[in-house]
């Protein structure tokens, strides 16, 4: 497959008078035209496709006799449905098998390369895009999946779309888009020891709420964000959607370039040097203005645990389950009461006293090599609590291989974790990895919605280190006091 992604605009626009944000720079470069009475048509550089949100889009193309305009800008894999048992087999669910088969047929018919279950490159679409070097600064990236915001970590404009829009992009490589507003979330200072990118983003959502960024593209700035690895930046951008954001972005820097250099679809040789020179301009101008600015002090953050049924319902691990009586409004009180009933938690319960039945380390939020290293560092020399069943699901087959090369699988297995093949797995339980009713799970995924991991299942979102520690202790525990071995 030859992904052709990064060719520069040959006619550069004259430098505009007014200072622009990173978002505005990418937006302007991708506006194809602005038809009167219609939103601007935005060009899409990279379209990621998976089995769940695409079959009806391909049907639409067929019905209208349309083709895929840019097969070489379309990257396809299977991730949501795939079993994580060895070799991703057997596929026991006939409806899932039918959906994967439909994707195979569609890729064949429309001339698309598919990273299928037997491909060494298969994995969660938001893990393999960056891994293959398809995700690059300055690109516009869409996918029929809300966590497409992940790719913004590279200084790309990346957002989730629905199936009708998937069809639109397949047919036209464009999307009519109303221009979103901009929001800066600046994290001052550096993250305290034991506080990860996951805790940072949970802290942000806890502060601004699950619709705090609706209608906005968020740019994360500040010392703490600069200090994050690419994996950490991806974790933060990934969960932008949980605050309602259209997209999340981090301006590219040396960390970005070093991460991308040498990857399969990254520019090579002279093209690389040229690209990096261009990418260095992808940052908000000093005088650029955002529609909204939020500042957070990194020192105020702690390892977080969600207690309720949306990602904004979150407290530090040293905290307690809040009392709905203290809620600011009747609506919030009702929501908190309902959440506590679903979660079977009493107000005032210390978070560290909450026992877990299951632990899930995986998902497009936290399944990359760095996440697995962090969890393995906690697990090393310990044993999973006998009452807990714990699962580690690498984000891609490549992550799995890399982890095995480092012996991380041995650490996990020795401690009593199950070591699986890659996929979305228990983040949303479309494959056989699901919670049973009433089971309580410490999960490194992104959504603690009712029934998300299985009907009646109770999800607490945490970082990979916090999840590993909960697996071993059998309850939540403050990673800042962990006995590393």
């Amino acid at each position, binding site marked *: 497959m030859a992904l052709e992604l990064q060719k520069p605009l040959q006619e550069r626009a004259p430098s505009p008078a007014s200072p622009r944000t990173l978002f505005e720079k990418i937006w302007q470069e991708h506006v194809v035209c602005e038809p009167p009475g219609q939103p601007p048509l935005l060009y899409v550089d990279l379209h990621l496709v998976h089995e*769940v949100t695409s079959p*009806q889009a391909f049907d639409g193309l067929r019905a209208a006799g349309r083709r895929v305009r840019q097969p070489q800008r379309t990257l396809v894999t299977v991730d949501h449905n795939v079993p994580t048992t060895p070799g991703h087999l057997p596929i026991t669910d006939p409806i899932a098998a039918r959906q994967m088969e439909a994707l195979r047929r569609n890729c064949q018919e429309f001339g698309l390369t598919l990273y299928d279950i037997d491909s060494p490159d298969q994995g969660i679409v938001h893990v393999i895009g960056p891994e293959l070097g398809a995700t690059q600064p300055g690109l516009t990236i869409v996918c029929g999946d809300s966590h497409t915001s992940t790719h913004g970590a590279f200084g790309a404009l990346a957002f989730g779309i629905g199936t009708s829009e998937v069809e639109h992009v397949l*047919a036209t490589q464009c999307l009519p888009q109303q221009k979103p507003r901009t929001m800066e979330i600046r994290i001052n200072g550096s993250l305290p020891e034991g506080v990860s990118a996951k805790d940072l983003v949970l802290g942000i959502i806890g502060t601004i709420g699950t619709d705090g960024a609706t209608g906005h593209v968020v740019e994360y700035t500040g010392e703490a964000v600069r200090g994050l690895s690419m994996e950490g930046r991806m974790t933060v951008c990934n969960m932008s*959607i949980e605050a309602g954001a259209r997209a999340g972005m981090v301006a590219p820097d040396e960390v970005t370039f070093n991460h991308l250099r040498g990857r399969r679809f990254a520019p090579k040789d002279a093209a690389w040097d040229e690209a990096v020179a261009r990418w260095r301009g992808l940052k908000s101008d000093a005088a650029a203005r955002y529609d909204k600015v939020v500042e957070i002090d990194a020192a105020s953050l702690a390892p977080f645990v969600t207690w309720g049924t949306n990602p904004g319902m979150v407290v530090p691990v040293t905290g307690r389950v809040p009392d709905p009586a203290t809620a600011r409004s009747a*609506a919030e009180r009702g*929501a908190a009461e309902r959440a506590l009933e679903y979660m079977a938690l009493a107000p005032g319960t210390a978070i560290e006293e909450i026992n877990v039945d299951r632990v899930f380390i995986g998902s497009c939020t936290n399944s990359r090599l760095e996440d697995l290293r962090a969890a393995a560092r906690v697990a090393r020399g310990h044993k999973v609590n006998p009452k807990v069943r714990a699962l580690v699901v690498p984000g891609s087959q490549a992550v799995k291989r890399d982890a095995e090369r480092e012996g991380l699988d041995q650490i996990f297995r020795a401690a009593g974790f199950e070591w699986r093949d890659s996929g979305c797995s228990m983040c949303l339980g479309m494959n056989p990895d699901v919670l049973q009713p009433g089971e309580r799970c410490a999960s490194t995924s992104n959504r603690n919605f*009712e029934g998300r991991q299985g009907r009646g299942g109770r999800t607490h979102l945490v970082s990979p280190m916090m999840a590993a520690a909960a697996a071993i202790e059998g309850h939540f525990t403050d990673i800042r006091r962990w006995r590393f071995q």
Partner: protein
Amino acid sequence: MKAFRMHTGLVAPLDRANVDTDQIIPKEFLKRIERTGFGEFLFYDWRRRPDRTLDPDFVLNQPRYQGASILLTDRNFGCGSSREHAPWALDDFGFRAIIAPSFADIFANNCVKNGLLTVVLPEAQVATIMKRSQEVEGYRATVDLEQRQVRDDFGLTASFEIDDFSRRCLLEGLDDIGLTLQHEAEIAAYEARRFGAR
């Protein structure tokens, strides 16, 4: 796409904020490869008890709300997953319009593409309609896209905003892919300028 001009119908109140698309249509029903037939799975885990029988307490199961075609709910409706199966399920169940103080972005986009109108009204007006729909049996409202108004028989006339393009797409039932393809020459020119001759 199905056009929407004006609709009058029974209003069902779902008095909850932050209703996510996992609730609207749980993941076990996303494996179908068709666009139709999702209605019976709408709000599945709320409508049905663990033994799959209908829960008579859930609002959409109450006799007085049978046949409702306008859903009234609280802020940030449709948050979470981008699954278009959510509007497909709402549409298939019989809803033509949803009224709330705010909607999640991707969900609202997906609704427009399916001829399902999302109406944003201020919280106070939503509260008024919520109260009426709970207190007045058979309470109906009219959603008028041409006038950009929600009206009822109790003196309510609430104006709402919607961008002109979405309004036009809905009023005319436009195929927006067809609209974009009218700009084929511009798209080709953009590609040539950016990527060179192909």
